[in-house]
Structures are given as C-alpha cells and as structure tokens.
C-alpha cells in the first residue's frame, strides 16, 4: 500500500515553453482507487510519469514536491508499477513468461522464486495461455494483460495505469478491464487515466480532474464531480458518461450513384470473399471482429492492394484501382491510414498539403488556394510551418484527412478514424465527414467504434469471421436498428491474434507529448 503526496508540483519538459503540469496539490491515501481526468494537455501522463519516477533527471524543470510514502519517486521505484497504453512497446521478450520474469530478473529476485511468481501474476490477471506463448501472437488486449502481469509480479504498492485501453478495440479493452478488476486488492493504491470514462468508473471510488494550465479543478466521488463539472468537461473533450453524442443523419434520400462495386473480392489468408457497393453521398461503416480483414478490405478498395480473387470496379474506370497510377488514385480515391504518421512525406505541414496537388500538376496559385482553404477548414493554420511529426494525435489525424482531401477525391476511405480521439476532436471529425457526405462524396470508414456507427453511418457492412465459405454478408439496416453486438460470431473472436491492421495510433507517448 502506498500513499501519495503532491505539494504544488509542476514539471516542464525540455524544449517546451509551457508547463506540462503545474500547481498540483493532491493527497492519495493507502488503498484508494482514483480516476485521473482532464482535457488533453492537462498533464495526466506527465503526472503519472512523475509518480513512477520516470521523469528525466538531466533535463526539464521541476517545481514543488512529490512523495511516495515519504520518498522521492525515483527512490521509491520498486513500490510503483505503471502500465502504458501501447502494448507493443512495453513487451520486451519474445515469450510471455519470459516477459513477466523480466522485471523480476531486473530486481535481483532469486532464480528459484521467479517462476512461481510469474505463474501467480499470470493467474491473477486471468492470462489464458502457456508461458511459452509468443508475445507477437497475442491480441492487443492479451498483450496489455501480459504487461499488467509483468507489473504485478513485482508486487507494487501503487499501481498506475496510463490509458491502458487506448490502443485497443472494445473486445481488448474489456479484457484489460476484467484483468484490472480481478487482480485488484485492498492493498494496492490505484491511479488510472482512462478516456473511456464510463467503463473505468466501476474500478474507482474517487475522481480527480486536472486543470490544463495548473491546479486541480475537482476532486471527489464520481457522481458529485460529474454532476458539478460534467458539461464543462464534455466541452473540453472528456468522455463524460451519460452524455449523448450528436447524430448526423443523411440529409437527402438514398442516392443512386454507385462509386465502387466489389464482387467476391478476397485476399488469401486475410480476407474472406466479400461483395458490396459504395455509393456517393453515403457513409458506409465496415465492421467486424479483430482479424477478419477490415483493413485489408480498405486497402483493396483504396487501390493499394491487389485482391487474390474477385473484381473491383470503381468510378467508371475500366481498370481496377490497384492498377491505376498513383497520381490518378489520389484524384479519385483518398485513403486515410490508421496511423497518420505513416503518410507524412515532407517536413512541414503546409508542404504536406501541397504535395498532392503539386503531383497532379496544378498551378502554384491553385496549390496555395487549396492549402490555405484546408488549413482553415481543419484548424491547422497555426501549425502551417511545423514538422508533421511534432503534431499531437488529434492534429496529426486532421492533417492526414486534410492531405487526402487536398487532391479532391470523390471517395474517402478511413481506417479507424476515431481511434484514441477525445470527445471534442471526435465530434469535429464526425461533423467533417458528415459535411463531406452531404457534398456528394462517398465515405467508407473501417471502425470498431459503435458510437461512430450510430452517429454517422448510413449503411453498415459487417464482415463475419465465422463462415468464410458462406454467402457474402449483407449490409445491415441503417442506424436505429438492433445493435451490432447481435451480429453472429463477433463475441467469440476475443482471442484472435493481432492482425497487421490494428496498428498503433499516432504519438500520444508518455512524456514526449502531453
């Protein structure tokens, strides 16, 4: 059990003008379970890093004091365990058991004690595989469970969870929450930062809200805190529970223009045969469990992958999209990847936006006009000269959507566009897509996000894992129909291995971007 005391604590990272966290006075007693919230930029990750003793000693500026059981966190490291949001960069070893043993080896635990403790920790989190299971073969949720086991094996008095489910699909997130609930005991103090607030509430008994720019805005039991500050928080982007999201129904009746027709398209080992159509002026959501091939389908539709069977006919062209020249592709179909950083090709935001139109041979005047308009529309004007890799998660996502729009494609494909977004950027993005749809563009979104489907999708295409040789799945009726969870097969796919399509999102690292 550990007690945490912060007195007027502040921290500024090296090379930044603004303080990441400032003026924090907080006391957390033994065994308390706290949910830490705040809009983006409020410094939650930095605070957790400070508690874990991970802030660099040789750079950055500190103010005030932070103590764990009366000790400086850097001296109290063995009492603290922290789980981060990206499973891939927390796992060190190739085999599961070895990874849990890693922490024990580091601390000099005698060899005879190591494996029993590993077994204990794995059982505590409900890990279902043998200890020689390859870590690369685990799904995201299972990897996070393993990371939690690795931390619990060291028996910390203070457990910190920094957005542990941010990179996971709903099934994976449920796995992790289950592990946390199961492994918790009255002896461990818990501090959790989690953007899916409604789902984290059962795990905690106290909510603390950080104010961006300094101090604590609120501190107390969940009901009281959300009652008093809920609206303001929602505006700042916190996913306050029980607040409805806007919906964007189609403004005109079903259009008839078919943009893309897909017949029996499959990719060996990755995608079972699918047939579907994509229309103008419509948002189509592609859903399905992990591993079923949603991202593969998006790549095929986007002309980036050739299918191993079936035909794709798009926009009245004779050749299928994967045979088009890249420049032609950008004029017709724009693809927005799950990780925006994959698509950056220049070192200035303005140049990123200009790159597409320039390749199409537009005149300099036209290019500037397009760039200015997009910067304005997506609120990126202030960042026009910045290096794209320095953008925050939400900004990077907006930039990648903007670059796809720069070449004015008629169809826009997005892979998990709302991944890891806070409430404000989520609403912005959905509104933008709705506006594009109303302008006559086609929009296809591969997504796990049920809220997105409810708010925006005009049609849903569900890819079912259970029967690859069945007749092709049909599109589900528009929103307002029974929830997607009732589609067959999805619940059993919880253990599917992590497929290439569920890659990590942009940035949002521990200390490099608050």
């Amino acid at each position, binding site marked *: 059990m550990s007690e945490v005391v912060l007195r007027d604590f502040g921290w500024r990272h090296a090379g930044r003008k603004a303080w990441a966290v400032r003026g924090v006075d907080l006391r957390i007693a033994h065994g308390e379970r706290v949910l830490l919230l705040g809009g983006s930029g409020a410094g939650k990750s930095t605070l957790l*890093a400070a508690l*874990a003793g*991970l802030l660099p000693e040789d750079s950055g500026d500190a103010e005030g004091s932070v103590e764990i059981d009366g000790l400086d966190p850097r001296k109290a*490291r*063995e009492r603290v365990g*922290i789980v*981060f949001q*990206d499973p*891939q*960069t*927390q*796992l*060190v*070893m*190739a*085999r599961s058991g*070895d990874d849990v*043993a*890693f*922490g*024990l*080896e*580091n*601390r*000099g*635990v005698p*060899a005879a004690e*190591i*494996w029993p403790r590993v077994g204990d920790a794995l059982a505590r989190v409900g890990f279902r595989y043998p200890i020689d299971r390859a*870590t690369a073969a685990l799904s995201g949720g299972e990897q996070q469970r393993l990371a939690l086991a*690795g931390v619990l094996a*060291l028996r910390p008095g203070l457990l910190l969870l920094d957005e542990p489910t941010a990179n996971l699909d709903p099934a994976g997130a449920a796995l992790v929450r289950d592990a946390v609930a199961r492994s918790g005991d009255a002896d461990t103090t818990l501090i959790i930062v989690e953007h899916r607030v409604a789902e984290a509430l059962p795990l905690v008994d106290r909510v603390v809200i950080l104010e961006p720019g300094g101090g604590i805005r609120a501190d107390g039991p969940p009901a009281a805190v959300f009652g008093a500050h809920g609206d303001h928080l929602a505006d700042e982007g916190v996913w306050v529970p029980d607040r409805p999201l806007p919906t964007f129904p189609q403004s005109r009746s079903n259009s008839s223009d078919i943009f893309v027709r897909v017949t029996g398209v499959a990719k060996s080992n990755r995608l079972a045969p699918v047939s579907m159509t994509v229309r103008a002026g419509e948002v189509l959501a592609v859903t399905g469990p992990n591993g079923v091939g949603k991202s593969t389908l998006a*790549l095929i539709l*986007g*002309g*980036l992958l050739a299918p191993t069977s079936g035909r794709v006919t798009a926009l009245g062209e004779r050749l299928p999209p994967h045979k088009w*020249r*890249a420049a032609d*592709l*950008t004029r017709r179909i*724009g693809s927005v*990847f799950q990780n925006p*950083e*994959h*698509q*950056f*090709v220049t070192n200035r935001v303005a140049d990123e936006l200009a*790159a*597409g139109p320039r*390749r199409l041979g537009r005149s300099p005047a036209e290019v500037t006009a397009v760039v200015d308009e997009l910067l304005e529309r997506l609120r990126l004007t202030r960042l026009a000269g910045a290096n794209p*890799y320095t953008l925050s998660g939400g900004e990077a996502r907006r930039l990648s959507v903007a670059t*796809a729009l720069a*070449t004015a494609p008629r169809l826009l494909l997005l892979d998990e566009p709302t991944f890891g977004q806070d409430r404000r950027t989520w609403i912005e993005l959905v509104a933008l897509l709705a506006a594009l749809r109303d302008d006559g563009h086609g929009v296809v979104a591969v997504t796990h996000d049920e809220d997105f489907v409810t708010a925006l999708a005009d049609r849903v295409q569900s890819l079912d894992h259970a029967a690859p040789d069945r007749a092709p799945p049909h599109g589900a009726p528009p929103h307002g129909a029974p929830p997607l969870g009732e589609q067959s097969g999805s619940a059993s796919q919880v253990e599917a291995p992590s497929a*290439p399509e569920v*890659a990590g999102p942009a*940035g949002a*690292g*521990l*200390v*490099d971007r608050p």
Partner: protein
Amino acid sequence: MTSLLSPVAAAAGPLARRNPVAKLAAALVFTVPLLATVDPLTPALALAVEIVALPFFGLGYLAVARRAWPLVVAAFGIVVTMVLFSASRSGTLLLALGPFDVTTGVLTTALALALRIFAFALPGLVVFATTDPTDLADALVQNAKAPARFAIGALAAFRLVPLLAEEWQMLTLARRARGIDAGHNPFARLALFGSTAFALLVGALRRGGRLAVAMDARGFDSGLPRTYARRQVFGGLDLLLVIGAGTLSAGALTTSILLGVFRPLLG
C-alpha cells in the same frame, strides 16, 4: 520475412541443442582460418564438412537451399569480377577475350572465391536457423560474460524486427496513397526508398523511446545485480563442439598445405 527469422530446426538435431555461444564460437573458429588461403581445395573441403554436418543440426537440405540462394547471386558476381579484373592471367588459355582472357588460373581463383562464399556463409546460416534469439542473448550474458544491459537491449530491439518489416510495407502503401510512385526511374526509386527509410527510422526511434521508459519502469536501470530466469550451461559437449570445429578447419588447411595447393592470402 518472419520465416527468415524463426529457428527452423527446433532443436531436432543433437548439435542444434548445444549452447548458443558454443555454436557461435564453433562457427567462427571454423570459418575464420579459411580466410588464410586462396586455393579452391580448402573451401571445398570445408564445405563438404559443413554439408555432412547439416543433418546433425537437424536441418534439411531443402530448407538450407532455400535460404542460401542469394549466395548463388553473390558467387556469380565474384566470378564475373575475377574475369574482368584478374591481375595475373597465367595458365592455359580457355577463352580469348582480349584483355579479359579466361585462363585456368583465372577460373581457379574464381572458383576458390565462389566456394569460399558458400563455405563461409553456411555456418552462419546454421547458427541462426537453430538458435532462438533469447537463448543466444542469455548464453552471451551467462557464459560469455557479455554486458547484460546491452544484450537485453539488443534482444528487445530485435523483437521489433517483424513489426518494422510490416511497417515498411505499410509505409510503401501509404506513399502510393499519397500519389507517390516511382515506376522505373532509378532516381525516383532511390528518392522513394530514402523517404520510406526516413519514416521507418522516425517510427522506430519513437518506439525505442517508449520501450526504454517501459524497461526502466520495470527496474532495468536499478543497478542491482541481475538474476537469471533461464539458465544457460556451457558444458563439456559444448567445448567439444568448439574444439572439433577448430580441428576440422585446421585439418582442411593442413590437407591443402600437404598437397601443395595452399596459396596464402597475403604474399
């Protein structure tokens, strides 16, 4: 790509089960002396020994042949280089090509070098095909006294290789989606390659930063002496493997010296 990385033999053969450091040392001890000579007999003998030894490592000839085909390309390249640039064209003339006369002298040296490529590469292939990276790191630390933090750091980074390979594919697709493709123009291809490599590096460095923080959070920099969850033992049989490798290598060299075929590398 991952098929290149995963150990193929899964400890099927008796020699495959030897200590990883012993296998590494044996491979080094066997191949390095081969560099001393430029005659074709020594590498031929060495290659014969290696081919005979393959089943004892649990490796099938087909599996090895599949992994070894880039060597054929390299060997061909060396033969061409010899024909073009050989310093001495002694021996019987086989093909008159003016300044590029092909003589028996030229072909002998070319053959020697080509055989050397294979003789040299095979042990490495065997080591990596029959050794699990974690076991190798453990053995380097416990038996060869390599610095533990570096070995584990390297191992942790190595785990990222398949991820980075996938990321390379993604980055290539993403560039096509941005309208950038290179076609057949070599300069455009180079530029595209450079851009993709840069993006890969940025992603890799970002991951590395997070990994380092996570490792420290689990006590990697605690300064305490590490304990070992998995023991690696270097025993008598392992020493025997290394000695055996050295002996065979010396044997090959001695044979060519005795037969008068030996041609020293220097001098």
